[in-house]
């Protein structure tokens, strides 16, 4: 579809136009009008526990370094030598006082400044090292939960303003006062558009069908929702519900009887209740406490039909070593490319993407519309994602 044919109406309150998921031109427009303009999740402070720690990741397709200096300031710098563009580090993470480009050995400090240039006498008086430090990403900010966001937009609103009402849910989901350490990652690609992943966060409707195997297992273990859902009262957020928030965030929360192990029927915990949170922070952060495992997912669009997902295992610092090990087993059993839930979703995304190639214009997302919305298996919360997406792309 040529850009001249783009219609501004990609979402009604009942349907989303399928080109949103399959049009490469729209994908590029998303880079320009969303991912270069908003706060994008890029990491967690639990990855940068020591001065000098750094990690590398991608921001809107660009390689960046998140680097903690000796004074604990965290910077986001483009991982691109200001000489001829080489990535100054190829490692996913490390701890360094400086980074030296492999190509011509230009050396950069933790604040991005250019520390040294071999054979500098070959440059004339116009050569100004001070102007050739690693280029900083315009904005970086961290939440009290340790989540790191960056923005290519120097004029982006304050992070708290962007998060808005979602902040309260994040506070509830990541409430360990001792903070979190990142204990590892599940890193995988799925062959589907990034919005299929994001909207899936508040798609409770698919649990009994796509996840029927582990839904049965959980119920057989005595786990599951603590109460049958009555339709939430409009305007009230109590019990088990999903909600779309201003800014494009969409979230679900529910109370259930916890199962300590997905894959061990003997390891259930009868009667122990917990409240879980699952949803997405626009545009690329998924939060999830399901399975008694707080975790986040960094959703990285690769191209229109390919998305990389990096799941961060967030271990509360209050955990003992045995609790930590138990958490790691639970997370592996529930999520990631081999988890009981993860296998279903990761297998399904490419099937959706392939089905979307059919010349059919619209996908129905009307579940709960006209009925008040808000149930866990409605589709009304994900409308917030589509509304924000449409607003940012087309005004």
């Amino acid at each position: 579809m040529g850009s001249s044919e783009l219609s501004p109406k990609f979402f009604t309150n009942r349907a989303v136009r399928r080109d949103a998921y399959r049009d490469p031109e729209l994908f590029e427009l998303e880079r320009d009008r969303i991912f270069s303009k908003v706060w994008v999740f890029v990491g967690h402070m639990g990855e940068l526990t020591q001065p000098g720690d750094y990690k590398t990741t991608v921001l809107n397709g660009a390689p960046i370094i998140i680097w903690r200096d000796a004074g604990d300031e965290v910077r986001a710098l483009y991982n691109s030598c200001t000489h001829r563009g080489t990535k100054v580090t190829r490692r996913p993470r490390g701890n360094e006082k400086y980074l030296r480009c492999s190509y011509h050995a230009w050396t950069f400090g933790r604040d991005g400044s250019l520390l040294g240039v071999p054979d500098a006498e070959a440059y004339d008086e116009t050569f100004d090292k001070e102007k050739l430090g690693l280029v900083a990403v315009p904005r970086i900010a961290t939440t009290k939960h340790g989540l790191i966001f960056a923005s290519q937009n120097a004029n982006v609103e304050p992070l708290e303003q962007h998060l808005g009402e979602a902040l309260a849910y994040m506070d509830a989901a990541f409430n360990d006062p001792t903070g979190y350490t990142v204990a590892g990652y599940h890193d995988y690609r799925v062959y589907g558009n990034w919005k299929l992943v994001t909207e899936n966060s508040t798609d409770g409707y698919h649990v009994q069908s796509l996840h029927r195997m582990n839904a049965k297992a959980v119920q057989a273990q005595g786990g599951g929702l603590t109460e049958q859902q009555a339709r939430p009262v409009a305007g009230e957020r109590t019990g088990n519900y999903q909600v779309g928030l201003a800014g494009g965030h969409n979230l679900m929360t529910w109370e259930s009887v916890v199962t300590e192990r997905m894959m061990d029927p003997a390891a259930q915990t009868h009667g122990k209740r917990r409240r879980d949170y699952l949803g997405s922070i626009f545009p690329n952060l998924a939060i999830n406490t399901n399975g008694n495992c707080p975790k986040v997912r960094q959703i990285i669009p690769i191209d229109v039909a390919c998305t990389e997902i990096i799941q961060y295992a967030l271990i509360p610092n209050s955990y003992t070593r045995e609790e930590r090990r138990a958490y790691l087993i639970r997370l592996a059993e529930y999520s990631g490319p081999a988890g009981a839930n993860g296998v279903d979703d990761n297998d399904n995304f490419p099937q959706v993407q392939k089905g979307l190639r059919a010349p059919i214009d619209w996908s129905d997302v009307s579940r709960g519309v006209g009925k008040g919305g808000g149930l866990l298996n409605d589709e009304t919360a994900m409308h917030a994602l589509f509304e924000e997406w449409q607003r940012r792309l087309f005004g």
Partner: protein
Amino acid sequence: MAAVQSALQSEANARSEMARRLTDFLFDGARLLDDRRWAEWLSTCTHDIDYTVHTRANLNLMREGDTFDDVLPYVKCDYRALELRVQMLTREWHAVDPAPWTLHVVSNVRCWVDGKASAEKERYRVEALCIVHRNRIGEDLVIFPCRYEDEIEVAADGSMKLASRLVIVEAERIDGALAYLL
């Protein structure tokens, strides 16, 4: 002297024979996995089996004092968990309908046949490479370069069972859905 030499030769032959049988055990197990004979494969595991899958990228996160149990695995199963996983593979996962095809190419097998755990059962350390090719209708071929670090238990009657398997995927990522066993 001749008797000593003969005894040494017999011992060497026995070790060589054990290494050959351990290698065959790996090949047989690979064939069971490729044939999707999950229950049979599970029956070749001890009831205290530890089956773990890591990526090299995650193992590189280990700090001093950490063991493999301190790092996030992709799969971590005891016997119960393997049993449930086998049930899921056999029945109701959408991810196995249609089922993927796999080819486990086992190679570079090394056996340590000197250790003895007890008089009744011996456990041998075996390492190998396993390149897993995975394909499925409508999908591209995916290849997983894996190392096996196994412990194989040999009973007095010579029967063998897998007591532990650490699969290290020499990669940064495991893409897609791991609805099979590496």
